[in-house]
């Protein structure tokens, strides 16, 4: 199964609210769940999706699980940079060819 796409993970308002709360501070699952009217399992499910999308980190301390934003979790930025690194090098090979062709005319 492919990893959930971060964009889709954020498409849900409940999950955005979770990220919003976590942007303020690291929170335990219990503390997080207290902010919502939905059931704890429902909150857990949202947390799982955010975790799988790489947007948050979960650490276990004793019996409690803590959630926090994953600052390096935004894979798209790295993906975009890698993409454009290759993109511009390839495009500038084209650029050189177009330039040569135009100069011969």
């Amino acid at each position, binding site marked *: 199964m492919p990893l959930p*796409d971060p*964009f889709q993970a*954020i498409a849900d*308002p409940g999950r*955005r609210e979770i*990220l*919003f709360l976590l*942007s*303020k501070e690291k929170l335990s699952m219990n503390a997080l769940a207290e902010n919502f009217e939905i059931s704890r399992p429902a909150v857990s499910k949202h947390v799982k999706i955010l975790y799988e999308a790489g*947007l948050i980190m979960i650490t276990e301390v004793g019996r409690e699980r803590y959630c926090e*934003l*994953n*600052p*390096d*979790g*935004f894979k*798209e*930025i790295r*993906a*975009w*940079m890698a*993409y*454009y*690194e290759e993109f*511009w*090098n390839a*495009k*500038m090979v*084209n*650029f*050189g*060819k*177009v*330039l*040569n062709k*135009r*100069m011969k005319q």
Partner: protein
Amino acid sequence: MQRDLSFKWYFPHTPAAVWACLTEQEAIAEWLMKNDFRPVVGHKFNFHTKPIPKMDFDGIIYCEVLEVEALKRLVYSWKGGPAPGVITLDTILTWTLIPKENGTEVRLEHSGFKGFKNYLSSLFMGAGWNGRIRKRLETLLNENANATT
């Protein structure tokens, strides 16, 4: 977390020839993408290419010409995202031409690749969150960004 890409290439042609290739619509279409570019500050234009679903990109790049200094420097914005009006890639291209012996050096800075928090912020804005929450979030994100950089 913001990062830039920098490139340098050399072409055995005059800055005038390189500049023409960089700024003429037909030439750009040939080496880069279909476009409606004009070298006029404030001109808004698009590039059209194939969508890349796995990168959340719908194939349209939204641009605006920010600076034009003939034969020397060209700056335009380069934005895109998964759907019209949703910008997740918000970057700037700066092209600089440097005359060299028997040719021209072309430098490209592709800047503005922002980290997760900025992306999050742009999503909250795109999702139509109200001004109060958005402001609160922006403040928090800025604090976090200052704390981590």
